[in-house]
Structures are given as C-alpha cells and as structure tokens.
C-alpha cells in the first residue's frame, strides 16, 4: 500500500462527500426557495407532499426519471445531447477547491477539508466555473428554436460582461492576503468577524456579490431565462433528465458560488467569534457548520432578492456591468494597492470602501434620476 494510493483513496472519499453535499443541496435549496417565495407572496408554497411539503422536490425528482426522452426536429444531435453534461460538470469540478473546514488529523494523517488544495485554487475556480457558458451557448444554438438561441446569446453576453468585474473585484483580496490559495485566504480570516475580508473590502464585496448573482443567472439578472420574454431561455426545448441537468447546475452553482463568497469575504469556515481550531474531527465539523450557516444566509439573501426585485432590462444590465461596476472595480484595485503599499491599518481600507460605495450610490442615482426626468 503506497502513499499515492492512500492519497487517491482519501481524495475519492472527499469527492464523494463534497459532491454529495453540492448535489444534495439542490432539493433543499429548491424547496427553500419555493417555500420562502410563497411566504413572501403571501401564499403557502408547496404543502401537499409529506409534512409541510418537505418531500415535494424529492417526488419531483423521482417523477422526472420517468419522463419521455424527446428530441425535437432539427436539433444538432450531438451538441443537443452534450450540452447538459457540459453545463453540470464544470459546476461540480469548481466545488473541488472550496475549503469546508480547517485541516484535521485523522489516524495520524493530516487531511485538508478541500478536495484539492494548490497555489492557484482561486484562479482555477474562476477558470472552471466559467466553462458552463459553453454548455449554455451550445444548448441554445443546437435546439433549433429562436427562444433558445436568444437565451443562449443573452446568457453568454451577460456572463462575459460580469466575468471581468468578478475577477477584478477579488484583486483587493489578493492584495491584502497575498495568495491565490483559498485555504490560506480562509485561514487568514480567523479570530472574529472583524477580521473578515468583507470589512476590509466593502466595495470589493458588493461588486463581487453583484457579479456573482449575474454569473449564476439569478434575479434581478436572470435574463437568460426570462420566462415572460423567452419562454424558458436556452433550455426551452429540453425535457426530462436533460432539463434536470440544467436545473441542477443552476442551483448547485448557487450553492458553490455562495460558498466561494463565504470563503473569500465572510471568513469561510471561521466562526464569527475568536476560536482556535484544533486538529480533531470535531473542529472540522465546527468549521463545516459555520460555512454551511454562511452559505444558508447567502442563499436566503438570493431568494430574498428574487422575491423583492424586478428583472433588469437588457440595456440596463449591460450599462450596469460595463459603465458602473467595471470602473468601480478598477477604482477599488488602485485605492487598495496604494493603501496596502502605505501599510495603513485595515480600518482605513474599510472606511474608504464604504465611502466609495456611498458616493457611487449618490452619483448613480442622481444621474439616473436626471435622465429619467429628461426622458419624461
């Protein structure tokens, strides 16, 4: 029994747990979304199957397994079948760099609670997570349907536009932490909530959050599947398990993106009070608990947004991405770099970020208000 084999077996076990967590989160998030949206709109939400509607998504999932395999006329046969696989696979792979807890020692062996832990893990996450757009474009293009085509195009244009903000808004974190390694970034935020990057990088946090919502196609940026305009968007012609692949990738990407936001800005697996992690499995479980709590809060936030905000118009979406968020990301980068080089304390960074946010809000709302009034 050599080291390499043991290492591989441990990794496979970790993959089982993490993928199980990501895929298992889908029915939970779907049910939570339907329930919460129901309550926000003063209706009960699913309440027929099982106590309190708890089994609804499981029954739906079982039903889908017996759905007919429909391949519409005129589709590109290969890409039509390949697209669902190309959408779900990158989401799952990108989950492999998330640290779910501090390193633990089990049977004398130190185990990192992330499937993969290497120097460029944050960059790897961005590289892989974006690959989903290929599946979406292929699905839209190969479906032989105008709705699908429009949905696929909109989706790719939107993801392109917000991808830049997404990767530029983390530069501030790279500057303050000095590493791409997600496990290191999470470990640096230990010692209470005031050490979280969110307070060091308020502007970066807001930019990243907005861009992440756009990346995972959630309201108010859910134009790729705007059901009132595009029927179903890129998956109009999909049914059965192929449709479920898209559905699953959407909800698991919400989970994965939330966990990355939590790791980058909300302290990752660290509790909000000072706590020194030991190396027992129990400390690993504490880390997992706090990460899941933060993911749950973020998922609730996403659902809350969906219950509150109307969808943006397409030109507004593009304007927000290119004309507002992108310059702000550059501003954040330059200011953070100068403050880091000056070695000023963290609270200066935080206050600067908050000030920038307030000024931006005032300026943008003034401009929009004037423009709207001029338009009559």
């Amino acid at each position, binding site marked *: 029994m050599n080291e*390499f084999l043991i*290492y*591989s077996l441990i*990794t*496979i076990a970790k*993959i*089982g747990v993490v*993928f199980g967590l990501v*895929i298992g989160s889908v029915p939970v998030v779907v049910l939570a979304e339907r329930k919460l949206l129901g309550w926000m709109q003063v209706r009960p939400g699913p309440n027929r199957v099982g106590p309190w509607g708890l089994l609804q998504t499981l029954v739906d999932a079982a039903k889908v*397994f017996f*759905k*007919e*395999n429909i*391949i*519409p*006329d005129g589709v590109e046969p290969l890409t039509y079948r390949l697209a*669902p*696989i190309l959408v*779900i*696979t990158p989401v*799952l*792979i990108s989950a*492999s760099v998330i640290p779910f807890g501090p390193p633990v020692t089990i049977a004398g062996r130190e185990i990192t609670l992330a*499937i*993969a*832990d*290497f120097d460029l893990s944050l960059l*790897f996450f961005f590289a892989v997570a974006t690959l989903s757009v290929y599946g979406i474009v292929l699905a839209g293009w190969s*479906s032989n*349907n*105008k*709705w699908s*085509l429009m949905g696929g*195009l909109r989706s*790719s*244009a939107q993801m*392109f*536009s917000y*991808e*830049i903000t997404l*990767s*530029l808004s983390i530069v501030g974190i*790279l*500057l303050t932490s*000095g590493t791409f390694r997600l496990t290191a970034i999470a470990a640096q935020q230990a010692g209470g909530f005031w050490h979280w990057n969110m307070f060091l990088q308020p502007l970066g946090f807001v930019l990243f959050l907005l861009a992440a919502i756009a990346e995972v196609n959630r309201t108010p940026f859910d134009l790729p599947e705007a059901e009132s305009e595009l029927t179903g968007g890129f998956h*109009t012609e999909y049914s059965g*398990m*192929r449709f479920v*692949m898209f559905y699953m990738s959407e909800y698991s990407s919400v989970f994965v993106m939330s966990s990355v936001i939590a790791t980058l800005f909300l302290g990752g697996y660290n509790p909000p009070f000072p706590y020194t992690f030991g190396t027992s499995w129990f400390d690993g479980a504490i880390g997992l608990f706090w990460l899941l709590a933060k993911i749950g809060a973020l998922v609730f936030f996403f659902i809350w947004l969906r219950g509150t905000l109307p969808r943006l118009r397409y*030109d507004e979406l*593009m*304007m927000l991405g*290119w*004309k507002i968020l992108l310059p702000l990301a550059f501003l954040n*980068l*330059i200011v953070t*770099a*100068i403050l*880091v*080089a000056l070695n000023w304390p963290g609270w200066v960074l935080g206050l600067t970020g908050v000030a920038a946010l307030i000024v931006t809000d005032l300026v943008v709302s003034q401009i929009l208000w004037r423009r709207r009034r001029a338009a009559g």
Partner: protein
Amino acid sequence: MDIPAVYTAYWPVVLAAAAALAFAVGTLAAWLLIAPRRPNAVKQEPYECGIPPLAPARIQISVKYYLVALLFLLFDMETMFILAWAITLREPELAGARFFLIGEMLVFIAFLAVGYLYAWRKGAFEWN
C-alpha cells in the same frame, strides 16, 4: 514511486473531473434506460408558442454580441496581468519597489482607459 509534489497537488482535480463527468453521464444513461420514447410529428415540433415554426431558427445574430465578445477578450486578458501583478506586489523582496509597481500598473490602466473610453464614446456599451 516518487511523484513530484506539483502533480500530486493537481491530481485530486483530475479525480474530481472524472467523478463529475461520471455523475452527469451516469444519471443521463440511467434515465435513458427507463425513459419511454414515442415520437410523433406534433410532439417533435420546435416550440414557437403553438404555431408551426415560421422560419429557420438559426437567425442572423446581432453584431453587438460579437462586440461584447471582443471587449471581453481584451479586458479578460488584461485581468490576467492584473491578478499576477496583485500577487507580486506582496512579495517581501519587492517591498521597496511597491510604489514603482503601482506606478507601472497605473500606466497600464491608463492605456486601457483610453481604449475603454473609445469603446464608450463609440457606443459599444449601448443597447437599443
């Protein structure tokens, strides 16, 4: 058997990719085994709100989308440089040269800003 640490660090990613692919393909294959298939002409028709499709679906795509793709390529390339720069700035050996490095980045961003403003003035960010 000695494997360099560089490879062992990335090996889990290969395993994860294989597992993700296996999950997607396996689920679809299991479904295809039990899914019925009874095609008929109406069922196979592309959806266009219930009427027979009016024209081929592969319509001409607005040139705007290509423009966005071009801008994305430009800015994403430059993001890669900035990310590498951000890490370099924290290198302890370069602590004395930090303001020089920031100056370099400002020059870089100034060049970019010219292109950005040009695209803005040309209306590349306007959608009608």
